[in-house]
Structure formats: structure tokens, C-alpha cells
């Protein structure tokens, strides 16, 4: 095991590689993305289904996430929990996650274990065998998960109310984990009907990232996934669209467990669209400029440095959605500063920003950071895998993902001014005050 430094270096000598991506589609319609990273003998194997909580039937909120839990139960070929046990016995880890637009399953394991992962993942795509007992205990588990994430967390409860106010008609207004009263009534047939229709190869994206050869992945994918027949009755993905918002909405949320009053503002905003990501790219810059860093953003400078009005300022823009997304601002007032005062200061800072030219130094600094972000991202192959899986589940193409850095790079001051004027429209806003008591709202 002892060798000299020079032997070590010659052994490790490797050509500089960029992110190497290969894509293809199986005969049954399953899309495949292979991302090569040969630095370590590890593979991330993921299957993404193009359905999430925003695709659930009315009255069954939470069923997509409930089904995600149930996919770890028995199949015709595996006992309950066996998949995770096999992954662990092979030194790997596995999990799953559900969002508005997708449900995804993944394992991270030694690269030579890929065939076994595919065998098991393909098995549970079609052979799930649920019992009444599974439903009863696992429903208790998701209710405890909701308790932990939401009921015990006043900020999460407030966020649910805000999203419900933001989306009048679109399912993004319903929480991913589900409304509690609907979760309590989820039954076996609800989970199974979602499963039978949507867990199909022609509704799925396979992402394999790590120390793999794309040709071998293709052979394996054909062997394990290619034999599953497509769902002929897969419905078109139709969702109720959000109507134009023509009146500002306001709400107050009071919970004695709130320690720090704050205000949150959201505006409906365009998301990344296939072949048309320019507005979304400009919104990424706008979020940085308004609230990215407390030291340099418009809100941070005005509310935390020029005046000591806030202990926190921030802006967020979720570019990755299938349908209209949100651009959000949040501010926590300093001790002794009223929410009304801090909101007035926030609105003044926004007005100043809209009335001024974009600072060219800030613009170039953000451009540099976004470019560097692409380099740092290559250190995390699982992050790259998530990028492709999410994008392909949200109506984007591989080309869109690969174009995105260039689209970000090309954003101009004029683009930012234009999206700011379009999105930061008071009539399209929702504003929420959060406090521990009615008194704090004054």
C-alpha cells in the first residue's frame, strides 16, 4: 500500500473533463440520462416519475407522497423493506422524495451494483403488493411526518396559508404533504390508482450518474426497464391554470410559537420554459440583486446597513417548476421596528430599485458567481443528477439544461429591468405578516 508521491500522481493523472452527458430513449418511451464522473467508483441511480402532488385527484392531497412511502413495502418479488435492506447490505443508501411536479427514487451505491439497483427499481415500478396493514401504519407515519414538518413549525403553517392565498386555482396552492384532513382519509385504492396509471416507463426518467459507461447503462436499461410495457392510457398532463391576478392579497398569521415577527411577499412569476428560459434567467439575477446577500443586495443595503430596520432580508425565485412559479421576498424587522414600518421600507427599496439603473459592477459580480457555480456544481454528481431529473420532469429538455448556463451568462441589465417591471406588480402580490400575537401586528 505504500507508494511514493510520484507514483500516486501518475496513477491519478486524468484528463480534465467537463460534465459528460449521454441521453437516449428506450423503445417503451422511458427517457435515460447518463452523467459520467469517474473520480470515485460510485453511482447514483434515480427514477423520476413525471407526476407529483400537483397532479393528484381532488380531495386526495398527499397521495403522491403517501405512495412514495408505500413503494418501500412488498412487491411480488420482494418483502416489505427488502429493497432498502439489500441496498444497505451492499453498502449503499437509498431514499425518495416528492414535490409538486415529480416523485423520485434513488440509490447511491458502488458502481458495479447498478444492475441490482435497476432490477429492484424496475420491479417496484409494476409489482407493488400493498396490504391493508401497510396503509394503516404508513398513514400514521405520514401524519407524524406532517406533525414534524408542519404542525410543530409555525413558519411552515404560515407558508401553507400563503401558498393557498397565492394560488386560487392551481394545485401549487395545496401542500405537497397534503392537508391533514385529506391525509387521514387516504385509502389503499387512492394510492393504487395513482400507481397504476402513472408509474410507467413512458412517464419516467432514468438518471444514472457516476462511474459508468453509457453503453453499458443502455444495455442494462434495456434489460431491466425496456421489458416493461408502456402505459397506453397515460393521460395528458393537464392542470388547472392560474387566472391573471388583478388584486393584491393580504393575510396575517398569528401563532404564539412565533419567536420573531416577519413579513413575506410573493408575486406570480414565469418559470423556465422549454426553449424560452430568458425571463427565468433574468429573474435569477433579480433575486440576487434584491435579496441575495445582505451585504450587497438592495434590501440588505437599505434595511440592514443604511438603516438598522431589519435583522434578516432575503429574496427567492424558484425557476424550476412546470407551471407559473413565485418570486418571493422576506424581511424580519429589528427589535422595536413595526411590521408596517419595515414593509414601507421594503416597498421604498423596491421602488428605488425600479427607478434606478442596474449597477454594472453588481451585474458582473453575479454573472461571475453564477459561472463559478457551474464549476463548483461539477464536484457533486448527485446534484447534477437532480438537475436533469427535475428538469425532464418539469417540461424541459436535456438541451434546455445544457443551454441554461449560456442563457444565464447572456442576461443584460435591460432584461433584468424588464422582468422586474413585469413581476414586481403590486396587483399581483400576496403579502403576509407573521407574529406571535395580534398586538405584534399593530
Amino acid at each position: 500500500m505504500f507508494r511514493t508521491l510520484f507514483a500516486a500522481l501518475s496513477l491519478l493523472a486524468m484528463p480534465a473533463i467537463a460534465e459528460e452527458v449521454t441521453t437516449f430513449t428506450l423503445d417503451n418511451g422511458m427517457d435515460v440520462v447518463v452523467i459520467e464522473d469517474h473520480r470515485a467508483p460510485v453511482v447514483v441511480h434515480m427514477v423520476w416519475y413525471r407526476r407529483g402532488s400537483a397532479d393528484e385527484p381532488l380531495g386526495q392531497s398527499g397521495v403522491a407522497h403517501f405512495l412514495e412511502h408505500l413503494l418501500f413495502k412488498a412487491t411480488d418479488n420482494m418483502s416489505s423493506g427488502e429493497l432498502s435492506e439489500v441496498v444497505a447490505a451492499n453498502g449503499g443508501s437509498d431514499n425518495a422524495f416528492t414535490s409538486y411536479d415529480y416523485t423520485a427514487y434513488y440509490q447511491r451505491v458502488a458502481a458495479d451494483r447498478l444492475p441490482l439497483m435497476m432490477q429492484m427499481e424496475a420491479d417496484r415500478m409494476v409489482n407493488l403488493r400493498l396490504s391493508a396493514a401497510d396503509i394503516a401504519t404508513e398513514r400514521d407515519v405520514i401524519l407524524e411526518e406532517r406533525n414534524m414538518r408542519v404542525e410543530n413549525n409555525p413558519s411552515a403553517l404560515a407558508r401553507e396559508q400563503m401558498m393557498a392565498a397565492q394560488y386560487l386555482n392551481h394545485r401549487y396552492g395545496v401542500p405537497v404533504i397534503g392537508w391533514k384532513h385529506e391525509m387521514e382519509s387516504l385509502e389503499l385504492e387512492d394510492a393504487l390508482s395513482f400507481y397504476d396509471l402513472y408509474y410507467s416507463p413512458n412517464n419516467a426518467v432514468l438518471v444514472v450518474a457516476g462511474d459508468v459507461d453509457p453503453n453499458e447503462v443502455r444495455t442494462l436499461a434495456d434489460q431491466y426497464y425496456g421489458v416493461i410495457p408502456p402505459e397506453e392510457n397515460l393521460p395528458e398532463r393537464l392542470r388547472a391554470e392560474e387566472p391573471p391576478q388583478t388584486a393584491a392579497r393580504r393575510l396575517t398569521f398569528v401563532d404564539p410559537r412565533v419567536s420573531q415577527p416577519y413579513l413575506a411577499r410573493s408575486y406570480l412569476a414565469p418559470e423556465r420554459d422549454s426553449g424560452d428560459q430568458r425571463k427565468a434567467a433574468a429573474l435569477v439575477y433579480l433575486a440576487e440583486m434584491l435579496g441575495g446577500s445582505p451585504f450587497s443586495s438592495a434590501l440588505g443595503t437599505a434595511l440592514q446597513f443604511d438603516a438598522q430596520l431589519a435583522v434578516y432580508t432575503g429574496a427567492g425565485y424558484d425557476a424550476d417548476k412546470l407551471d407559473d412559479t413565485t418570486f418571493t421576498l422576506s424581511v424580519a424587522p429589528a427589535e422595536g421596528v413595526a411590521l408596517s414600518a419595515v414593509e414601507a421600507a421594503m416597498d421604498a427599496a423596491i421602488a428605488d430599485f425600479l427607478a434606478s439603473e442596474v449597477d454594472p459592477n453588481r451585474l458582473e459580480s453575479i454573472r461571475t458567481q453564477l459561472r463559478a457555480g457551474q464549476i463548483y456544481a461539477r464536484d457533486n454528481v448527485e446534484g447534477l443528477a437532480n438537475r436533469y431529473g427535475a428538469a425532464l420532469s418539469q417540461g424541459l429538455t436535456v438541451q434546455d439544461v445544457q443551454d441554461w448556463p449560456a442563457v444565464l451568462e447572456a442576461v443584460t441589465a435591460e432584461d433584468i429591468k424588464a422582468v422586474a417591471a413585469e413581476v414586481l406588480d403590486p396587483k399581483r402580490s400576496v403579502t403576509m405578516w407573521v407574529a406571535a400575537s395580534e398586538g405584534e401586528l399593530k
Partner: protein
Amino acid sequence: MIRLIAAFVFGLNAIAANADVAIQELTTPSGINVWLVEEHSIPFVALEINFVGGTALDEDGKRGATNLMMALIEEGSGDMIAQEFQAAREALAATYEFDSYDDGVTISAKFLTENRDQAVALLAQAINQPRFDQDAIDRVRGQVLANIASSAKNPNRIAGEAFYSAAFGDHPYGSDDSGTVETVNALTQDDMFTAHRNALVRSRAYVSVVGDIDAEAVGPMVDQLLAGLPEDGPALPDHVDFGLTGGVTVVPFDTPQSVALFGQAGLKRDDEDFFAAYILNTILGGNGPQSILMEEVREKRGLTYGIYSYLVPKDHAEMWLGSVASANERMVETLDVVMDQWSRVATVGVSQEELDAAKTYLTGEYPLRFDSNQAIAGIMVGMQVEGLPVDYVIHRNDYINAVTLDDVNRVAREILDPEALHFVVVGQPVGLETTE
């Protein structure tokens, strides 16, 4: 001049595949030890520094000083005030993170090859010449006070506060290292310079570097960052025994789900039984869905979303902890199951099958950790802090495999003690009361 002490190539045997990680152990011209892995395929460097000592070095009456000080390192240095410093950092697209915990303060940095010299110079300025301007102190103090207020209403933080204060009393481990409203409000600029002088000292610094850089360049880089710091700091705190005895403490808090933090005395990282205990904990509650506690509490009964146990060998105390959250109406049943399993494992032990499965998992999972520059930098600095040699990476799986069923079950008998297990429960748990 770099003195090369040793360079190893480790073949990390993932189940069948091989990863080669070449760790070079270097000494810089000024005498600081550094572990380096060269990885030239991505043009950036990940750097990790850990100064042992941490918030446990807070002086009497100055609780929160180290925490506030580390939060201020990025708030101005040299001739740059906070906003100027951050503008310079953003223009370089470098990231610097400064943090503190009870046994150490940490610096994590990432910077690009293309502007490495400037990014290192700016970081060196932050480390060696912090300004601690009064307006920055006041601004960040406001953020710390907001965090303290938030902890007072967070069930998990309330549980931790109650548990650690009862376990460790006046020892630094017995209080939240953010400080109290009173101590934080009383902190001065002088206190910040003192905390900086005490916590960031060369003899307690551990450094790892991974990425697009070679051994020749690493020595001067690390010296630029650290050579100007004082050599040594104040004495570290004494060892403290875990002071809680078996029982239940209920902290009433109006929320629908109770949270429980539970634990007993543990064992030191260098204890000869550590690996046996580590495997035992993996089986008991360390390995997510495969653990006994997860199977009994979640899978069979649906009482929680997650339950975990942890071995916590701190620098000056040792604990074996666990945590779980259940609806107020179901917490009593949850704790009964935990007690039953803790007792059963202590008396009956685990099976050969459970031990084999845990070993396969642990030995298979270990090589998979070395999959990114940042991960490797973090692992290497952690090894140095724990006093492990470079070649531990080669032998670690042998240590795991050498543990026998007798070892594990002897440790279970000797250390796991249901009578000593103390539960702090925050919420409105139905039917549960504080014991005498």
C-alpha cells in the same frame, strides 16, 4: 520549502470496485501540518480548517463570545468594512464559511484556480485582521438575539437546553453556546478580540486541502492563512461526567407533537470498545430504516416519522443519545417501546445476522464517502481532529471486521443501561410526568 512526510495511495475497496485516494501529509515552512489530495479535473480547491477548542473556551460571563466572534469574521477586515469585504469576495466567486461549535471553530472555503491567489489573500485578511467594527457587532448581535429568541420557542432546542444543562451543569457543555440575552448584550469589541486570540491558534489548527493545487503551492498558501496567528491558547476545559440519571423530565410546551431527546453516558472515541459500540449503535438506531428502533417504532407501529440513536464522543464528555418525535397522545407508547428495546438489546444482545448486515453496510458505505473534493476535505480534517493517522483510511474497514459478536454483546451488556436512560420530552405528552 515543503517537507514531504508521507504519501499514501489508498485502494479503497468498495464491494468490488476500487477508488484511489492519494493523501499527502505535508509540513509547511512555518511548521503547520496539512493533508492534501490533488484532484486536477475540476479547476477549484476545497479547504477545511478546524481549530480545536471552540465555544467551550468562552470566558466566565462571556457566554456567546466565540459564536459572535466567528459570525463577525466575514464582517470586515484589514481596510475593508463588511460590505467592501463581501463585494470583494463576491467578485472572486469564492465562498468562505466561518462557524463554531462546542469543541472547535471551523473555516470552509472554496475558490477557483483562476483567481486562487486573490481568494487566498482575502481569506488570510479575514482570518488575521478582523476589524470587529462596533456597527457590525451591533448588527450581528441583533441576529444572534433573534436566534436565541427562536430557540426559546423551538421544541428541539428547548429539549437540548434542558437535557444538556441537567447533564453538564456549569461546564460549558451545560449551556447554549449562543449565550443568553444578558451575556450577548454585554459583549464588547474587546471581548471579540479576546475570543479571536483564544480560539484561532496555530498549535490547535488542523488543515486539509483537496483540488486543483500541488504540494509546492499548498505550503505557502497555508502559511499565508495561518502563520501570523498566535502559537497557543488558553487551557481547554476539564473532562466532565454525564450527570443525568435515569428518568423523565417533561417540559410543557403547547404544540401538537412532542419531541424527546434521550440518553445516557457513552464512551470515548479512543476507547478500545469504540468500534464495537459504533456497530452496536448502527444496529440499534444509527442506520435509518434498518435499525431496531426504526423497525419497532416506525415500521411496526407508525408512531413516528423517524427515530435515531447516536454515539456522541465529545472532546470532554461522552454520551449515547437518541431522538424521536410523536403526537402528544402517542409519546408514552413510543417511550415504552424505546425502553423495551434498550433493555432487550442490553440483556439479550443482537444476532449474528444483525452484526453481519451492519458490517457489510459500514464497510461498503465507507469508500463511497470519498466521492467529491469537499467530502474528502471534510473527512481528512475530521480524522486529524480525532488524532487518526493517514493510514487509518486503509485499516478502518479491518477494525470494523475485527469486531466479534461477543464484543458487541459484551458492550451492550456493559454500557447500554435502560435504568440510566433519561428522557427530556417537550410538548403536552398525554399521561407522561416528570419523575422524581
